[in-house]
């Protein structure tokens, strides 16, 4: 993996990410898994760490993926790639099209885009559920129902899910709690 191609891949991801860091996740997942950079499981460890550390999640993910692919130079290249489209586009918008987001045509395009992005983020959610909670891949390999429905995984999922709905604490709290639960129960 050359530094330049990392930069270009993340430039492309930045260009098609609309509506915040989580929207970058499905694009990143498709690039990273499609290229065989990581397993799904490793990918979601990175998501956990990116959600639990300061900074925008998209930037944290880019840094992490770049680092694993090509060291510190790779993390810088990936992050710069991700922010380059922003720099170019925002400077153009600020200079020439300040009111562009109020244009009916832009609003119309966004009205189609936003629900689709929700669907895209749902693919990432589905993916992590089938890796971490109901391991569909393990089940396909073994064909044993015991590999699909693991009581302890479901228990941790229910506990974390319940406490997340009840107390909206910072994600890092749930990530830490789940790490401890994993060490004790899994």
């Amino acid at each position, binding site marked *: 993996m050359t530094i330049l191609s990392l930069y270009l891949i993340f430039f492309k991801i*930045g260009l*098609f*990410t*609309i509506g*915040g*860091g989580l929207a970058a996740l*499905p694009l990143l997942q*498709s690039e990273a898994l499609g290229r065989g950079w990581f397993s799904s*499981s490793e990918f*979601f460890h990175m998501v*956990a760490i990116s959600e639990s*550390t*300061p*900074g*925008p999640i998209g930037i*944290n993910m880019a840094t992490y993926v770049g*680092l*694993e692919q090509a060291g*510190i130079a790779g*993390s810088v290249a990936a992050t710069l790639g*991700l*922010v380059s*489209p*922003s*720099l170019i586009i*925002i*400077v153009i918008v600020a200079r020439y099209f300040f009111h*562009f*987001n109020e244009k009916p*045509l*832009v609003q*119309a*395009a966004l*009205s*189609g*885009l936003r*629900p*689709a*992005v929700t*669907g*895209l*983020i*749902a*693919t*990432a*959610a*589905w*993916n*992590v559920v089938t890796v*971490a*909670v109901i391991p569909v891949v393990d089940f396909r390999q073994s064909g044993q129902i015991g590999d699909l429905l693991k009581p302890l*995984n479901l228990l*941790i999922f229910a506990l*974390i899910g319940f406490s997340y709905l009840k107390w909206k604490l*910072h*994600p890092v709290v*749930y*990530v830490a709690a*789940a790490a401890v639960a994993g060490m004790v129960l*899994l």
Partner: protein
Amino acid sequence: MKSPDTPTARLRELYSTFFKIGSVSFGGGYAMLPMLEKELSEKKGWVSEEELLDYYAIGQSTPGIIAINTATFVGYKTAGIKGAVAATMGMISPSLIIIILIASFLDYFNEEPLVQKALKGVNIAVAVLLLSSVWKFAGKTVKNIGGALLCAGAFVTVGFLGITPILVVVTAALLGTLAFFIQGRHKS
């Protein structure tokens, strides 16, 4: 309002302000807005709160991460293209430092069975967090039958048919535009 004497001082101040915002704001996006208001409007007086909301709205409708788009915007308005670069670099620097430290640490201990178990648990928490994000976004973005179809269509084509998300993003934007013209024709 503090006004730095030289352009270099202003760039340095932009970098350090966004460095600070980047190192204390978790999650980016919406979670960051109160932080931006406090640092940029109240403390520095670089932008008014109304301007900030405008930049934010534009940041949501342009490609890229909202936090970075907003940083670029404020930087540009404050000190031109150099300011845009300084603000963005400030915003990404803490991520680079923190993630590199944590990742190097984790790679070192990755093979430990106990760390493996912890990471398995962590993925379950990610499942909870992502599902709740999807639920929250769906409430905000899926407002009619067309939206529901687009959301479901994106999920199925990318999740199960292996279509690239880029194609879905472009198609959804085109469909939104198309719906606009069809509705416009009905009205006129």
